[in-house]
């Protein structure tokens, strides 16, 4: 039981993520989380504004069900399957983050410096979340997939477009991490 309550190593987690993808493929579907953003816009009536949202959203209910399950899974994992151990980040990461003003890195899943209500309810704090979310939503639909659709499923199916998209993910992620995060958080 201890092994379940402790954080899972990469060589357990990675194969289990492959299993999720393979099960969905076996069910005749595919593993793609960002499609749900398009479906939700469609349900909300976005079809009035663009053909992109004129789709049969009922055919996507299975994927919304996966999302609902994922939320429940997040709840179950934190409430019943965790021993509260901190994330074993590398010492360099912890010290780099300290320079940016992030303290106690790894004690929680997410940094309170970004996600605590105290920070969220400041102008800078809410701008960070809104801009980040907007970039994720816009970018993933422009690229036609996210980490699940391109990095896991697309690469598993040896799709060149997915490799190009994943390179793009890293170009953006590296620019943000090395050049922009220090401007936002550094003093």
């Amino acid at each position: 039981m201890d092994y379940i309550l402790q954080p899972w190593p990469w060589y357990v987690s990675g194969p289990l993520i492959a299993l999720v993808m393979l099960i969905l493929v076996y069910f005749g579907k595919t593993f793609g989380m960002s499609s749900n953003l398009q479906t939700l816009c469609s349900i909300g009536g976005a079809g009035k504004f663009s053909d992109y949202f004129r789709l049969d959203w009922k055919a996507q209910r299975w994927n919304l069900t996966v999302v609902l399950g994922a939320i429940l899974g997040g709840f179950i994992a934190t409430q019943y399957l965790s021993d509260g151990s901190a994330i074993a980040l590398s010492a360099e990461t912890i010290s780099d983050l300290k320079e940016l003003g992030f303290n106690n890195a790894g004690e929680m899943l997410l940094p309170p410096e970004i996600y605590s209500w105290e920070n969220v309810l400041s102008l800078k704090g809410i701008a960070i979340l809104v801009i980040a979310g907007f970039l994720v939503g816009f970018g993933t639909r422009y690229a036609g997939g996210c980490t699940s659709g391109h990095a896991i499923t697309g690469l598993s199916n040896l799709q060149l477009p997915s490799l190009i998209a994943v390179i793009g993910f890293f170009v953006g992620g590296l620019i943000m991490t090395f050049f922009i995060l220090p401007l936002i958080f550094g003093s």
Partner: protein
Amino acid sequence: MKFLKFLLVGIFFGIVLVKSEAVSWYRIYEMFKFQAFHMYGIIGSAVFLGVLFIWLFKKFRIKSIEGKDIDLAPKDKGLARYILGGTIFGFGWALAGACPGPMYILVGTGVFSMFIVIAAALLGTFTYGLLQKKLPH
């Protein structure tokens, strides 16, 4: 009942991503700084097994439970959309520390400020839908 299996897959997915710490902003930061193997091990082993089993599915003509051939739709051709869209997504991924799967999962872990990120992601998706025909693909 038809949806129960998808609910169970989703629950399993949510548990795996929390237990792997792949939903953690800190792990994403560490990955982009190349300071640990953890995230590369997760993605690398998932893709390695994915390539192997998708190849096996095709080689042995495994049918899905719907009785159809396993056939993952190829991605559309193009370059600009993958480079530009991918890079924009990367900016957001490294800032929010969460991609679309973890966004939902993190709500389940009790981080309700994530609803703001999700709402903004829907706005970003809506904006893409409006501009789709004007953007290079």
